[in-house]
């Protein structure tokens, strides 16, 4: 197990490459999904208001 984390002495480089990639890709996915949901809700809310106003 220690060997696995050691990465033959390249731990700093290997793990920071995987770490940075994970953070960037997760952040992009989550922020895209969130933004997509909030805009959909805003469209629906606006539509509902229009309908009420007639």
């Amino acid at each position: 197990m220690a060997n696995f984390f050691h990465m033959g002495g390249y731990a700093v480089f290997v793990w920071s490459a995987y770490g940075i990639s994970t953070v960037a890709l997760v952040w992009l996915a989550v922020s895209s999904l969130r933004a997509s949901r909030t805009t959909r809700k805003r469209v629906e809310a606006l539509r509902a208001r229009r309908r009420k106003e007639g």
Partner: protein
Amino acid sequence: MHRFANPAEFNRLADRILPWAIAVMAISLVAGLYLALIGSPPDYQQGESVRIMYIHVPAAWMAMFTYMVMAGASFVAIVWRHPLAELAGKAAAPIGATFTALALITGSLWGKPMWGTYWQWDGRMTSVLVLFFLYLGYMAIWHGFDDEEKAGRAAAILALVGVANIPIIKFSVDWWNTLHQPASVFRMGGPTIADSMLWPLFIMATAFQAYFVVVFLWRMKLEINQRKLSVMNRAEVYG
């Protein structure tokens, strides 16, 4: 083509594709990460540092693939004035910029221990940096114009002109001498990567591709709704 002209139709299609794309992404990511970090051998020259390849190479492939999606969408937008095509380019750009940044960062983290430097202005690295700036420029144009129609047109033209950079990236390692090594996978005479490393690479590439589809569809829905909002607001002001 005309069937996707309708945003409602597109949304239905996206909702049908999304669960499958998420499933493919999850499975290939788990399998790919296991193979990349544990199930594959170290390299005879580079030792364990070769594991950076399994994210660096898919990120670089996707950086170019996403650009072609963006440029293709821009072409359709200019020629057929297709509103969804314009939004497709806008949805793809941040994903491509992220892939490009990751290719540059992971490459640099790999270059330090192997080559002895984080960065050199060689043909490959410089042309990929240009790709990153093309993405940033494209996004900046969309933000910079108040008139969405003008913004879309200008951004699409930039995306099309920037297509010239794609063959430059691909062949930079053949046309000029570079620090970066020549192609290992898509080359004449077949790959020069052992099968025990090539398979993990392809599985990781599948995961990245599926990730693109998922995030791209989410962003498409976002852009469609945003366009709807701005149309509705305009109707409120003028109508």
